[in-house]
């Protein structure tokens, strides 16, 4: 970062006017250069967020403005069993899916970092689930999980392992695990490829040195790979958690939150109440209730980034 205070140039004879001093003031100019970005942030981030929070304190319906009702929406949600089911579902969905995505993603990344035949092709293929539009993959999974025409049920029946179709999306717990699996399938490539990029920044000389010192593969991972990968892990897991927590499309295309609300996430419930049911205020309250959880997830990653300083010395940025 360049030091922003520059000595202003002093004119030899005339005292500079306030305006000419301002004209040459880099801070003043810099502020103006920042304005477009600031405008974008306010218009597309701060304003919608603020509006969402404000709506959650009103009884706005689609098609007509509401009145300020304070915390009434939140009080109502506090006693709403469907809302608490959705909170539980969202946490379960996020924690289980993110943990498995991290483990599987890291494993894949380590594997891909090795010299494999057809390395480039395999790396490209890994990305496919991430490239396919979410709704398409959701519909594909919806067919895979179909009660009557599921290919999984069909295969297992042909092999003779089961006698009746598996009720993937009709039973509450089956539906939860099925949707979590679909989310994992979709999310692993993102984690894997990002971590792979991180792995390639680790200097091979460190591994050489460690090998010469007699480090086992586990020790090399634990004391070289892992610490150097921490910042990337923090970033990728923050994104992964945020994406999972706010997931909407997969659930909406597959179950609409059913059966008996067993897969309703906060995002889908918010949509159902706000857009389909027309209660914008209540839907906004559900969406706003997601913010503390998201902030918590961001804090963890921030904490993770900080740790790198402790490990490598406080003045190493």
């Amino acid at each position, binding site marked *: 970062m360049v030091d922003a205070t520059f000595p202003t140039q002093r004119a030899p004879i005339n005292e500079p006017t306030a305006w000419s001093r301002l004209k040459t003031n880099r801070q003043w100019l810099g502020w103006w250069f920042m304005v477009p970005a600031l405008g974008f942030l306010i218009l597309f981030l701060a304003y919608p967020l603020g509006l969402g929070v404000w709506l959650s304190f009103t009884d706005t319906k689609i098609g007509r403005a509401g009145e300020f009702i304070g915390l009434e929406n939140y009080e109502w949600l506090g006693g709403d069993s469907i809302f608490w089911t959705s909170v539980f579902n969202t946490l379960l969905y996020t924690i289980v899916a993110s943990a498995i995505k991290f483990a599987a993603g890291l494993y894949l990344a380590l594997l891909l970092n090795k010299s494999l035949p057809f390395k480039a092709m395999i790396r490209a293929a890994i990305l496919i689930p991430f490239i396919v539009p979410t709704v398409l993959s959701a519909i594909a999974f919806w067919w895979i999980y179909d009660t009557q025409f599921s290919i999984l049920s069909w295969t297992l029946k042909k092999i003779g392992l089961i006698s009746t179709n598996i009720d993937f999306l*009709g039973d509450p717990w089956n539906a939860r695990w099925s949707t979590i699996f679909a989310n994992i399938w979709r999310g692993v490539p993102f984690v894997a490829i990002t971590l792979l990029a991180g792995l390639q920044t680790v200097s091979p000389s460190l591994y050489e040195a460690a090998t010469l010192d007699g480090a086992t593969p586990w020790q090399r991972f634990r004391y070289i790979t892992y610490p150097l990968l921490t910042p990337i892990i923090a970033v990728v897991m923050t994104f992964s958690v945020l994406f999972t927590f706010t997931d909407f499309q997969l659930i909406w295309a597959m179950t609409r939150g059913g059966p008996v609300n067993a897969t309703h996430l906060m995002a889908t419930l918010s949509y159902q109440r706000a857009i389909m049911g027309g209660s914008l205020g209540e839907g906004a309250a559900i969406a706003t209730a997601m913010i503390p959880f998201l902030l918590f997830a961001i804090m963890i990653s921030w904490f993770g980034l900080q740790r790198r300083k402790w490990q490598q010395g406080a003045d190493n940025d």
Partner: protein
Amino acid sequence: MTEFTRRTMVKGGTAFAAAAALTGPALLDWAKAWAQAAPWKAEKGAKINLMRWRRFVPAEDEAFLKMIAAFKAATGVEVIVTNESFEDIQPKASVVANTGQGLDMVWGLYSLPHLFPAKCMDMTDVANYLGKKYGGWTASAEMYGKSGNKWIGIPVATTGGLMNYRISSMEKAGFKEFPKDTAAFLELCKALKKNNTPAGFALGHASGDANTWLHWALWAHGGNLVDKNDKVVINSPETVKALEYVKALYETFIPGTASWNDSSNNKIFVAGDLHLTSNGISIYVAAQKDNKPVADDMNHAYMPVGPVGKPTELHLAFPILTFNFTKAPQACKALSAFMLEAENFNPWIAAAQGYLSHFLNDYDKNPVWTADPKRTPYRDVSKRTLTPGGQGSLGEKAAAAIADFVVFDMFANYATGREDAKGAIAVAERQAKRIYR
């Protein structure tokens, strides 16, 4: 669409049916004459943005677009039609109503005009014109179309959700004809399960199928979400009876109904694995094309009557509305009337093959209802249907209760054993009280 060619129409013999067969230039001439005589003169250079629900029967959509083309040729009004799925119509229309731009007309579902009656143009003159000309509106048409004394939408058609059953399976289960009351109907479902030819009704968040048959079950037993004054009365012994009835039915269903959406029962029925369900006529239409033996062996029936002793069916109405901020009010009114004129409407509902049922009494005579007797039950759905509001008002609150699956969740929670009757009703009551406050 081959069954209703001009020839079969003319064979019907009546001038009414013959008029329905106008095609090509004849249709255009008629459309031009109509535009000359119609009380609504389209504004010069008018343009109409119209959003409609996405069709289920392709021939219906073709007939609709043909009609739109004739309207354009006759009046010079350009009509831009966009299609949206059932679920997306309501939110999009609401946003347009809110922002006052983007669309002029919406052909939507259920009580759509009642969600924002203040934004709907007064269509009373159009409704009176059509009612007078075509034998009057059904009672449900007035409920769907009118807000107070004002028509805020024109009810175009209904799609019926009736019983679809396999004849052979029913007979094997010991029934010569389809049960007319709920008790016998439960026996039929039990027998079907025993014969391994099961019934199945959607219990997933299927906004069409699930809501129609569950409201039927609730009302058939005398349960109601709200009374005439919109007071929440769901917590009643009648509701408990309805819950127990649905649970007993659910135990006879094919596995997986809790995950069904609106297309699930269609697929499974056509494939031959499902022997009784509630649906529009689309299963029959698809089966004729994809699985003829199933089509030949299936038939339709009214929903059985419950302890209340009268039909309690809920069908899906399709009203069309015009926003009052449109720049072409006369053109929109002209189009609304034009669509429902016999020359257009007859071939259109013929093309829909029973998927669309009329609200105007004169169209009972359309041969589509009698040419294939299996379609006949769908002729009467507009006369038999109640509204999603039940006994209460039709509007924002009723729509919100439907959209938020209040009644649906209550049944699903109890039938799948997630809650006891008391708990399921308590959740629904709490939600309903907030919506209807």
